[in-house]
């Protein structure tokens, strides 16, 4: 491309830049906590057992919208084993979604707690509820939310829409939609709370130990200094676990009231109902394209629901350049649990709507969908490399073998290819760390970050080992404790970019402090000392790391450091290609292969970075063809609050995945957790369209939808 100017090398850190030639960074290192996790020795919050611990359970609203008439917990209070009981609702109060917390109790065993919960007599005035956006948007809908069931967003407008449509040779109009999905973290939300006088220790399944400490302190009105949050291992969060939540505060209060440690982990149903979800998205779009394949105009009215009183906005149009555009969004409230950030919030929705539209527009101008995309991309930039990545991915999926829309092969199995692009930020700041080097050569790095399954612990150890010339197992990483130096929550793919610079700087400072201390004994100036591999080099003398550390005597090196500029960046780009086989007799889609070309700045651990991509892609396949929260249209109760009817891909549903990670070492570290999860659903939807010749503007693309659409199109045979 013409505007592919050589990007200037971004400014690097002046004292501790990433090494030009690295020994460990970018190699494949196995997770350092792998052995603990595969042997069951890793203790998650769910596994914590404290002396005298009892079990808490939450009382929840069974109704979507109701006013409490009366509540009688006297029988439950006297039930066997019950040690504490809290009611957080009073007559006259309203609940706004099924599963809303109205009380809690703790008993000696889980079974006793469940029994006692059933003894609480609750009487409700059931009020009319809104179970879906259609119901909520009807003019005659009951007003459930104040001031209204909907909230208008601000209009976004750019260019001259009328002129844009005048210049269009073709237009496409359609309504696109995506479903609500729930996070379905395997470890449910919850914690173990233990009081020691006025001090609270909480083992919480959280993505933010420091944020959760703050949440406990605010919710319980105690000083943050009195709270310690520990999350050594946690079983997935995907954006839904950033604070103590209601269950954490109730657990702490139960523990106080019962004067005993309390474990309160939610069950699967509660997890689906009350701990967040990805909002649905709807978009009524009209878009125009000129005869030579340039996008001219985009006009969209969009809406979606994030549940009871929560927003549902998402970026639209996504990536491609529509010079003239207008977009108007409306948040629609329904009586269901509130949305929370979920793996690239907003992006999969915006990507699906835009990318399916792009394929339809390409067909209008009879262009290859990839060529059409290349023609309408923003200029190349380090964080906008789609024009380079599309041909790379096309090569690996064998894009040349693509037929035009509708597989002409006779027989029920239709094959198709599709593509799409994604972008994400992934910058991070603010992490602090503390490093100790002892006289026996051991290195401990402490940081109040957490490893939510991404491999954070492992890449931290790699950066420290690289900086000190050690092997990864020689470094001890301590994290997941709010008593460690502050680090931000793990969300928005920011952790790597926030924590790795802190590791580099802190380990670098510790190395310099070590040189300072041992220089007199070595008889050289500190500046003449360098790090080898497992060695310290002072002029012509080379001594082992252990011998160097031995010179420290009793007092270890102990330094603090933090994130500094010049070691990380933000902005990633990637493309994905999908190959599918659709059985048009059964409507079942089999995703055969996904190709992913993705950048994430400097790659720290190639192995875990690839696994992040696999994981994101699999979640995208789920979003495309499997998972959906289904609410009963009369009661707004979820009909699939479990894991057999809330469908997720099993091992046989997993496609072949081909990941190409593009290393950009000059940019520093950028997060990779969310980017690969964005584009998959759109690529799969486009591949299904290419295979069957019918356009599905709604995910998940389930057999019923596909067969209905095929029927409407008169079949394909």
């Amino acid at each position, binding site marked *: 491309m013409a505007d592919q100017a050589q990007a200037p090398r971004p400014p690097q850190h002046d004292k501790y830049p990433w090494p030009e030639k690295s020994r460990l960074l970018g190699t494949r290192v196995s997770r350092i906590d792998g052995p603990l996790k595969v042997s*069951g020795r890793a203790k*998650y919050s769910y596994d914590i057992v404290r002396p005298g611990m009892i079990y808490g359970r939450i009382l929840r609203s069974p109704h979507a919208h109701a006013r409490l008439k009366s509540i009688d917990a006297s029988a439950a209070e006297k039930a066997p084993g019950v040690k504490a009981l809290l009611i957080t609702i009073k007559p006259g109060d309203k609940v706004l979604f099924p599963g809303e917390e109205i009380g809690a109790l703790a008993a000696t065993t889980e079974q006793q707690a469940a029994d006692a919960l059933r003894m609480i007599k609750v009487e409700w005035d059931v009020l009319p509820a809104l179970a879906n956006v259609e119901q909520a948007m009807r003019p005659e809908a009951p007003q459930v939310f104040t001031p209204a069931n909907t909230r208008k967003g601000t209009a976004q407008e750019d260019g001259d829409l009328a002129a844009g449509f005048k210049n269009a040779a073709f237009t496409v109009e359609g309504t696109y939609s995506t479903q609500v999905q729930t996070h379905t973290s395997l470890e449910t939300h919850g914690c173990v709370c233990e009081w020691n006088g006025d001090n609270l220790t909480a083992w919480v399944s959280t993505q933010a130990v420091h944020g959760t400490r703050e949440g406990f302190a605010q919710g319980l009105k105690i000083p943050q200094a009195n709270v310690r949050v520990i999350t050594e291992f946690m079983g997935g969060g995907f954006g839904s676990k950033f604070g103590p939540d209601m269950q954490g505060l109730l657990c702490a209060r139960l523990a106080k009231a019962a004067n005993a440690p309390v474990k309160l982990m939610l069950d*699967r149903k509660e997890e689906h109902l009350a701990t967040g979800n990805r909002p649905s998205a709807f978009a009524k779009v009209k878009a125009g394209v000129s005869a030579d394949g340039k996008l001219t105009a985009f006009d969209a009215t969009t809406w979606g629901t994030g549940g009871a009183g929560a927003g549902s906005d998402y970026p639209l149009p996504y990536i491609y350049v529509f010079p003239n555009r207008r977009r108007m969004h409306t948040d629609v409230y329904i009586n269901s649990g509130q949305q929370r950030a979920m793996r690239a919030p907003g992006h999969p929705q915006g990507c699906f709507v835009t990318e399916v539209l792009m394929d339809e527009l390409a067909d209008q101008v009879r262009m290859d969908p990839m060529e059409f995309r290349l023609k309408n991309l923003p200029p190349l930039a380090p964080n906008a490399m789609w024009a380079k990545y599309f041909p790379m991915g096309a090569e690996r999926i064998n894009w040349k073998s693509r037929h035009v829309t509708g597989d002409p092969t006779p027989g029920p199995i239709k094959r198709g290819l599709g593509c799409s692009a994604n972008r994400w930020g992934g910058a991070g700041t603010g992490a602090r760390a503390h490093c100790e080097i002892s006289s026996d050569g051991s290195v401990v790095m402490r940081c109040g970050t957490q490893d939510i399954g*991404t491999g954070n612990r492992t890449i931290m150890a790699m950066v420290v080992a690289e900086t000190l010339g050690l092997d990864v197992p020689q470094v001890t990483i301590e994290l997941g404790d709010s008593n460690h130096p502050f680090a931000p929550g793990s969300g928005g793919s920011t952790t790597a970019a926030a924590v790795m610079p802190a590791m580099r700087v802190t380990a670098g400072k510790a190395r310099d402090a070590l040189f300072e201390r041992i220089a007199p004994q070595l008889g050289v100036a500190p500046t003449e000392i360098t790090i080898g591999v497992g060695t310290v080099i002072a002029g012509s003398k080379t001594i082992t790391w252990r011998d160097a550390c031995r010179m420290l005597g009793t007092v270890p090196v102990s330094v603090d450091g933090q994130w500094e500029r010049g070691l990380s960046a933000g902005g990633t780009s990637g493309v994905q290609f999908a190959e599918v086989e659709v059985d048009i007799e059964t409507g079942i889609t089999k995703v055969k292969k996904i190709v992913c070309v993705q950048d994430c700045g400097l790659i720290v651990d190639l192995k875990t970075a690839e696994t992040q991509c696999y994981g994101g892609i699999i979640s995208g396949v789920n979003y495309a063809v499997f998972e959906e929260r289904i609410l009963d249209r009369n009661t707004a109760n979820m009909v699939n609050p479990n894991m057999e009817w809330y*469908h997720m891909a*099993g091992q046989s549903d*997993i496609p072949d995945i081909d990941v190409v990670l593009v290393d950009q070492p000059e940019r520093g570290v950028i997060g990779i957790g969310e980017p690969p999860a964005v584009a998959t659903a759109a690529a799969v939807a486009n591949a299904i369209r290419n295979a069957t010749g019918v356009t599905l503007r709604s995910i998940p693309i389930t*057999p019923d939808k596909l067969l209905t659409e095929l029927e409407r199109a008169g079949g394909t045979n």
Partner: protein
Amino acid sequence: MRAKNAPVLQGEFAGVQRRLVTDREIRYGPRTSVQRHCEAKQAYSSRMARKKQTPRDESRRDFFKTVGVGSIATAVVAGVRDADAQGPAPVGPGDVPITLTINGRRHQLSVEPRVTLLDAMRTRLEITGQKRVCDRGACGACTVIIEGRTYYSCSMLAIEAQGKNIRTVDGLANGNTLHPVQQAFCDNDGLMCGFCTPGFVMATVALLEKNPNPTPEQARKALDGNLCRCGTNIGVLKAALSAKGVTRG
């Protein structure tokens, strides 16, 4: 055109794919392999009981009421004999003493009859390797191996598991030396958050003890009873296909 018998699901169950829905499944949810196994076992034991001319065809629920304390094998016989002699002797609802053999160690504990094997291990014995995730036989995080085959320990009662050799992920490693399957999971990055991992490891061990050299198709099939949310399945499959040195069980 689509085939006449193609499964089209509508209404509340639109969106459901992969299997045909029976009335029973709509009412009770799909049957898991464990439930199917239990039903088959129950059918077998009631057939056997009929052969021994017991006075009644005991349903699963009645069965628990009549089971005496002690191992399940002797309890079946004892229950039948008691039923002959003096009618059912109810067990529970309070705690009953039981003995579980887990990873070669005998544990004596007392639980209510309704406590699952998973909960008994996790909350009474602090054997927390297997995880509680769906608690209804859909996700496989609680997979244990009993006499050579996998079971969802959330769908088996602790009192049912007496007298059997129960294996969990906690007992696989030999000190600090990982079992070949555990090592393969580490080497192939078949784990992320690690919460599904113990279940996947046990399912893989059970597979390889039966079939040390599975085809990819066989491995996928054997692991279909386990779900992962992080998306580690690529590494898991590589691990299952590359683990070497698992002795036939």
